[in-house]
């Protein structure tokens, strides 16, 4: 499951200076750098001069980065460096936070997510999210999974979709006999897998995970990581994690963020996970991944 650790010849990781824009040549480098995954098309996300604010406070400044399809990209960095903020802008979840606004561009398959004509509801249908604290609805397990497809007007057979989603979230065997019992009665790890099933059920293109394992024990964490590995065949996964071991063993690409003097977070380095953890380009990254700060 530790794909980043496979003995693949790696070229230099992508290193984006804050002032450089993501250029096609860099993208090519990225493609070459991860021969472990199938050949890829254009990036899923492309951030250009992205800044994020809460009121007058700048939480993230001038970020340029590219997220590739069918990969697990981990966002690591100290608390307050803006990892979750980046994630929550990727599916416009931060639209709902009073006072939150952003600058620059976030392109999703080349479309600016913040174009006036873009419908945030449709964005969230394609870009699902799993949250830090498992947050199943206080309804039945079945209804938890079926809610998304229902509001999306899913016309197919709902029972099959629910089963398929629960199977892919590796929780079907544990809940198949109690689909009518409340999702909130499950254990923490089961709840989180139910939340992943709920995210999968709307058949998204991307799954964003905001520290999905921080409330879980190591066994449940391992299950979620295995699950992510299965899911990346079909989805692009972006995961925020505080756990560097998790980033190291469960991601293909790693982005390291930290914050500057003004407390605004910025991206230090992005590259293949093995490069970031074994041979980072920046001293800051090396200090962080080796545990000397953060």
């Amino acid at each position: 499951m530790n794909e980043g650790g496979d003995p693949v010849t790696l070229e230099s990781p992508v290193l984006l200076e804050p002032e450089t824009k993501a250029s096609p040549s860099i993208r090519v480098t990225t493609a070459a750098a991860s021969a472990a995954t199938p050949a890829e098309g254009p990036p899923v996300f492309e951030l250009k001069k992205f800044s994020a604010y809460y009121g007058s406070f700048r939480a993230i400044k001038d970020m340029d980065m590219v997220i590739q399809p069918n990969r697990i990209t981990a966002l690591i960095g100290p608390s307050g460096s803006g990892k979750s903020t980046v994630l929550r802008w990727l599916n416009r979840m931060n639209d709902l936070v009073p006072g939150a606004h952003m600058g620059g561009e976030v392109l999703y398959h080349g479309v600016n997510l913040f174009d006036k004509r873009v419908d945030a509801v449709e964005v969230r249908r394609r870009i699902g999210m799993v949250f830090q604290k498992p947050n199943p609805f206080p309804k039945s397990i079945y209804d938890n999974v079926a809610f998304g497809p229902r509001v999306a007007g899913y016309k197919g057979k709902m029972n099959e979709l629910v089963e398929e989603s629960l199977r892919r979230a590796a929780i079907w065997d544990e809940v198949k006999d109690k689909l009518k019992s409340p999702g909130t009665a499950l254990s923490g790890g089961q709840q989180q897998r139910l939340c992943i099933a709920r995210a999968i059920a709307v058949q998204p293109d991307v799954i964003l995970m905001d520290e999905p394992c921080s409330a879980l024990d190591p066994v449940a964490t391992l299950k979620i990581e295995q699950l992510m590995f299965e899911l990346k065949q079909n989805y692009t996964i972006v995961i925020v994690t505080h756990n560097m071991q998790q980033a190291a063993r469960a991601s293909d690409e790693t982005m390291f963020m930290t914050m500057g003097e003004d407390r605004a977070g910025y991206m230090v380095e992005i590259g293949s996970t093995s490069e970031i953890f074994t041979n980072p380009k920046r001293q800051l990254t090396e200090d962080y991944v080796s545990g000397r700060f953060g």
Partner: protein
Amino acid sequence: MAVTTGIRTSATSAAVQRALTGQSRPVGEWIFQGLLFLSLLVALGMLAWLLSDVFIRSMPVWEQRGVVSFVTSNLSSDPEKAGIAQGLFGSVMLMVIVIVLIIPIGVAAAIYLEEYATDNWLTRFLNTTVRNLAGVPAVVYGLLGLGVFVAVMRNFTNSPLNLLVGGLTLSLVVLPIVIITAAEALRSVPRSIREAGFGVGATKWEVVRSHVLPYAAPGIFTGIILTIARAIGETAPLLLVGAAVAGFGQAASAGVVDKILGPYTALPTTIFSWARLPQSEFRALTAAAIVVLLVVVLLINAIAIILRNRYERRW
């Protein structure tokens, strides 16, 4: 403190024993605790005294007339025959009108304030206004009802002082309270639940309808029931918008619509009018009517408490 520090440096079993058991609680603490308990006793004692006084005064009615006769008799100037049937009917109908009006309007207003309104000066102004309105004395709403509802009703009916106007006025009295309690119930649904809904591509209305509102419903309904308990005891606004304070004639055959659009009385106004009568027999009747009103209010509150305990959700 200095003593404890000294003990800590040489923590022998005996020293620890002395430090942990040797001290008695200071006298001031006992006195303070006693004062707090006394305050509670004063409050409860007064209440118990009032209740028992009312109950004892009402005893002759229960003994001579019985509950059924008292509750089913109409208003009368003859204390032997007077009862609260019309008052009970009026109060029940008022509550029905109030419930029908305040649930949709109050909940809708709360949903707007909590879920849709953006945080700007207008929203803050509206929130403050609703809170202030909840504190306005009920008699002021009575004047408003007299000035607006009665005046409008005059164009449609010969008896503008009817149940409908009374219900509208009482609804105005309690609407701010309903909005506040409903808004609090909505606010208690955690943001993570809303985000879960939005995260699977639901619209705001879908999240509110399928999740926020159902999860907040027990709190909203508890608030509404408590509000009803308050409304049923309101007297001043009803006096202003014309609940009859003396016996009134109405054909026994009158249908519900006629009754709603005709003269009426309510329990509190019955109590008010009886309390002013000079005959001493009416004192027992007044006390009996108060007991009935108290029982009704306590029953409503009990329902609210039971519902809250049964459906309350911990997040």
